[in-house]
């Protein structure tokens, strides 16, 4: 379909949020007042939405694939030898308003993992179905960003229903799906002109220019490192150097918009019922890869570390996701006590390739 574009005033954006709140749980970026930390969470009021806030501290995947959720409850009746079961996850229409393009790309990767393969994950599907995705172009990079290296920003080019970009006259709204078009059709928004389309392109170009040299310079290197990782040519010493700095906290996986590993555990509640919990897991943990019979193919920490980078930056994985597993949000660099976020790992492998030059 050809993409329709409109120009909305701030007032119209607010009105849209209010209107969506009638039929959706509306989530958006907001700033915690005391700590100034940004979270992408349910909006109490349209006024809480801050479209200019930096990328949220936690990825938006929290809404579709929470850190921990109860998915099932069951009770065994020993006398009648029967089990009463009830599922604990429920479908609610959600509007994700103001997604940064990296988080949108993250959702697309999770979609392909949870829904696009042999098995469809019903819990994720239930959360994901009836989601309205509204993305928001980054007018400038935030300090840790490198999405220009991973083809996931600063503007979104697929997967959104509606996309916003702040221009001089207001917000440029691009329509990306039939669902989005239906919303647009119900409004009398001003149609955007070619001048706006030109300004949009200029805004994106300027944003790319504003990325630090380190990030833009790395663009080709990410591809080169992918090649190295795929072919297995990264030296063991490099993985050990990286592994020695891993504190095995799991933070990188928890903040990664594309990490999809989880663990399942049944726990007993006080009243004899059982709850089935699903919680995020991380390949950096030793117990994660343990198999029956105590075999652990990835016991040394460096083997667990390189597994993660294999998942983010290798061709076989990218084939599954139809894009690199890394979306360039830089959050792993933020939270890693060992300072081995993905950009640094690319640097170390790059250093190995160049023999210490650069």
């Amino acid at each position, binding site marked *: 379909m050809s993409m329709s574009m409109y120009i909305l005033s701030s007032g119209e954006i607010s009105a849209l949020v209010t209107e969506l709140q009638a039929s959706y749980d509306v989530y958006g970026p907001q700033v915690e007042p005391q*700590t100034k930390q940004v979270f992408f969470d349910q909006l109490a009021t349209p006024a809480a939405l801050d479209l200019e806030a930096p990328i949220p501290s936690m990825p938006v995947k929290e809404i579709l694939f929470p850190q921990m959720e109860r998915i099932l409850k069951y009770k065994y009746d020993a006398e009648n030898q029967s089990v009463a079961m009830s599922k604990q996850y429920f479908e609610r229409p959600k509007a994700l308003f103001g997604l940064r393009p990296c988080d949108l790309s993250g959702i697309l990767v999770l979609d392909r993992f949870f829904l696009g393969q042999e098995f469809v994950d019903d819990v994720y599907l239930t959360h994901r179905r009836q989601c309205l995705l509204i993305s928001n172009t980054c007018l400038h990079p935030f300090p840790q960003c490198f999405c220009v290296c991973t083809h996931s920003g600063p503007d979104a080019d697929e997967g959104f229903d509606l996309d916003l970009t702040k221009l001089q006259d207001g917000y440029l709204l691009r329509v990306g799906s039939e669902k989005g078009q239906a919303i647009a059709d119900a409004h009398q928004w001003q149609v955007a002109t070619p001048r706006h389309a030109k300004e949009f392109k200029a805004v994106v170009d300027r944003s790319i220019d504003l990325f630090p040299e380190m990030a833009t310079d790395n663009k080709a290197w990410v591809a080169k490192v992918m090649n190295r990782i795929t072919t297995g040519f990264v030296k063991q010493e490099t993985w050990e150097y990286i592994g020695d700095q891993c504190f095995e906290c799991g933070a990188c996986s928890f903040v990664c918009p594309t990490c999809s590993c989880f663990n399942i555990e049944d726990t007993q509640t006080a009243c004899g019922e059982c709850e089935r919990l699903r919680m995020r897991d991380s390949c950096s943990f030793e117990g994660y890869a343990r198999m029956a019979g105590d075999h652990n193919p990835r016991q040394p920490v460096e083997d667990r570390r390189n597994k993660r980078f294999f998942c983010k930056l290798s061709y076989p994985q990218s084939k599954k996701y139809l894009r690199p597993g890394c979306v360039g949000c830089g959050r792993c660099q933020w939270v890693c*006590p060992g300072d081995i976020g993905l950009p640094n790992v690319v640097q170390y492998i790059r250093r190995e390739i160049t023999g210490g030059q650069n």
Partner: protein
Amino acid sequence: MNLVNYKPCVCNLCGTGCGQFLKTDGHKVYGVSPLIAHPVSKGKLCIRGWHSNELLSTNERITTPLIRENGELREASYDEAIALVAARMQAFDGAAGEIGVLASARSSNEDSFTLARLTRDVFKTTLRGIGAEAGHRKSMAALEQAFGYPGAHGSLTAIDHADYILVVGTDITRQNPVIGGNIHAAQRRGARVVTLSSSRTQIAKLSTKHFQEKPGTLGLLVNALGKALMAIRTVNHDRRANIDQLPGYADYAAALRSISSVALERASGIRYEEIEEEAHHLEQARSIVILFSSGISGLDRPTIDAITNLALLSDRMDHPHSAVIPVAGISNLQGSFDMGMSGELGNSVFKALATPDSRIRALFVIDHDDGIIRDKERIAALDFVVYACAYKSAFMELADVVFPLPAYNETDGTYTASDKRVQITHKNVDSRHHVLPGWSLFERIANASGQHWGYHNAAQVFKDIAAHTRGYGDLSHELLSKGFGQHWNPQGFAGCGRRKFNAINIEYWESPTTPEFPFALMIGKAQHYWHQNNLMRKTIVPRREYDQTLWLYPHGYIEISPDDAVRLKVRDKWLVNVRSSIGTHMKIAVKISPDVQDGTAYIPYFIKNMISDFLLPYENAYAAGEESVIPIQIQE
């Protein structure tokens, strides 16, 4: 506008005091996020912090008061349980040593302060202590002597700016990972990080320099650094009048001069030339941070004295980026010490329990990790035991009355981190079972005993803390609610600013090993979890990680070097008989590790048999903490 679902608080799982957000709807906790603006943790959390939501939503909670009747615990109302406790406790003579009180190093300051009041004014006993404080009191005594107040000198944030960081002993990336991460970051920005540790820990690998000394010689090594530093100044005719004139200097200097480089090398395995080279770096540093672990796995007093002396000798302790920090494994160890719950020297609850003819008849206990219940038979035989904890634990089996407590996010409370930073956590979840906060429970027990304190909320308790606790005078809940806490003010101590060298003795540690018992066994080094056993057992992913080790080594493990394994003709996971020189023994699997020196062996702290059967007979092993060495033989 406050967020709907994310509430800031302070992680309660070690003495670092990291900032975290809990994702909660006010009824349950669903997730955790690090707090980026926090000055110490700066957006980092460790495996424990990242999984606090699992602990905070466990079903293994104590939800109501319980009273033991005909051998079984039954549910009871607060009124009934409190009346029973008040009545029974009145029958004991606290002043005569019949009542012992064990506080928790995880309790808030408000809870510990009111517990101290209950202990003093209602139970009238001086027999009190904090679960795992043994080592911390030694740290406090040494620091008070050196700097004039019992607390850390300087702030943990000094790590981010200091030129030189000395890590003495502790396996800090495991025990306090976020501090370890800050040290690692400092090393990467160019600070010189030096680790003294008998085994090759992760922080040793990440350090600029690692001195791998023989067990038991940490203090000697620190003193040797002092000697070399002094020698450099002598050569340079660099007199430091401000240091020379401090009390104790002459004796300290004389002791340092007496160190023989030959004897040093024989005892520690480290050449004096290496120490001399290191002292040059130390001398050039403008700011110096020294970290050591404090608490049950902490160092012995002579080693801590050596550390505080070296700090004073460095002449850099007035620099804003210098610090000496006793790093606690448990969240509020410092605070519970400040609130007066630490026992008197020589009058400890454990000593009373271990002495057969002591007068102890009743025990009042908060928390207590179940892996290390000492003197279990004696506790079981006491007339009356009261236990309060948020989570179910093995200690309940010993109690006549059990009280629930709120989890750390279910009530307002302040916590004092290792560097004296006092931080507040506001209640962000309604306790599901209308559980009374600790301070309120203690007040009601006091009420039932005829005393009225008049506290209505935690802020009011804190007002009393500020009025009666040295260093806390400037603080209030209102102040602490802005920003990320505040260090308590050492000016509250009359001695603050007065510096003094501790007396030291140079001893060349002779290994207690013999041809019959040739291995020096060290305890304490472990995976992530040893000091939070009762809590970590209630999580899911950290528990799996903990079990991961035990699955591989179901009987626990003893770490030895690859060469020793060859000599003993054993392979990884093989069971061996370990026999100590006093006759205790156990069967345990071998774990072969290149990080361990020949002739040494390590057993993690958390292995239960190790504590109860093997270690407990070693009273002095507890006293010496991290530096304790037990001679053993290992046989296939």
